[in-house]
């Protein structure tokens, strides 16, 4: 059960990967999170989280061909796996249950 738990930043990263579909690599994932949350994301924290999500089996990744604008380096694309979708749904359900009946102020 503990492995199924998703942290707040992990949820943001997973949702960004879901939203970006086939264009989910480092740069757009960062932009997506920053644009929608207004939160600064460092590349170190992003890849650290993506590595953890991959180790849990929630995302998978593959390398594209090298491009000149990246100094001859490849992009690493990410895709959400069914376990990731399930973990996201569970996290939302948990939050919804907690929010149910709560009134702020």
């Amino acid at each position, binding site marked *: 059960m503990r492995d199924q738990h998703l942290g707040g930043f992990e949820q943001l990263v997973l949702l960004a990967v879901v939203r970006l579909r086939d264009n989910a690599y480092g740069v757009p994932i*960062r932009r997506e999170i920053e644009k929608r949350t207004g939160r600064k994301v*460092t*590349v170190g924290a992003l890849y650290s989280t993506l590595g953890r999500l991959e180790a849990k089996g929630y995302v998978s990744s593959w390398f594209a061909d090298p491009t000149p604008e990246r100094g001859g380096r490849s992009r690493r694309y990410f895709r959400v796996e069914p376990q990731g979708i399930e973990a996201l749904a569970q996290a939302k359900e948990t939050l919804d249950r907690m929010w149910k009946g709560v009134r702020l102020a």
Partner: protein
Amino acid sequence: LREGAAKVSEWLLCRLVPGQEGEIIAGDLREEFEARGGGRFWYWAEVLSCIAVRLLPHRLVAPDLRRDLHHAARVLRRNPGYTLTAMVCLALGIGVNSTVFAMMDELFWELLPVPQSDRVAAIGAPARRPLAGTAITSIFRGAWPPHLGGCSPACWPTTTYRRASIATACTG
């Protein structure tokens, strides 16, 4: 971003971030730097934060010295045997180190505790062992005393004598 700086930062990333991830991050940063149209400060902050996260995977925030010291004190209090061993080792290490340094300093590095110690001369015939069979004279002030005859100290090899040299001369 200058090519040299880019190479240094990319080299750091590839060396300090394990696997292919360093290459991927270097590519991402270069692509984003071009898209932003600059921002050297931003670029270096990203590189350093990336390296810091890799080197300190257990902490994603800046180190808190006060919290660390408090934690260290609690851990030491919980393990008195370890604390005592560490304290004894540190005390012995510092004590022995200071003693050896003081001895070496007094014997080999400090000049003789006499006025004008650079004018101390050794009188005697050169032997196989340096200074063996010689004695250290008193300090010559001013001109070379005429009753000693021979040449003046100017023709003696210029040597600064220290305590260890005297010990060799007296026992040799």
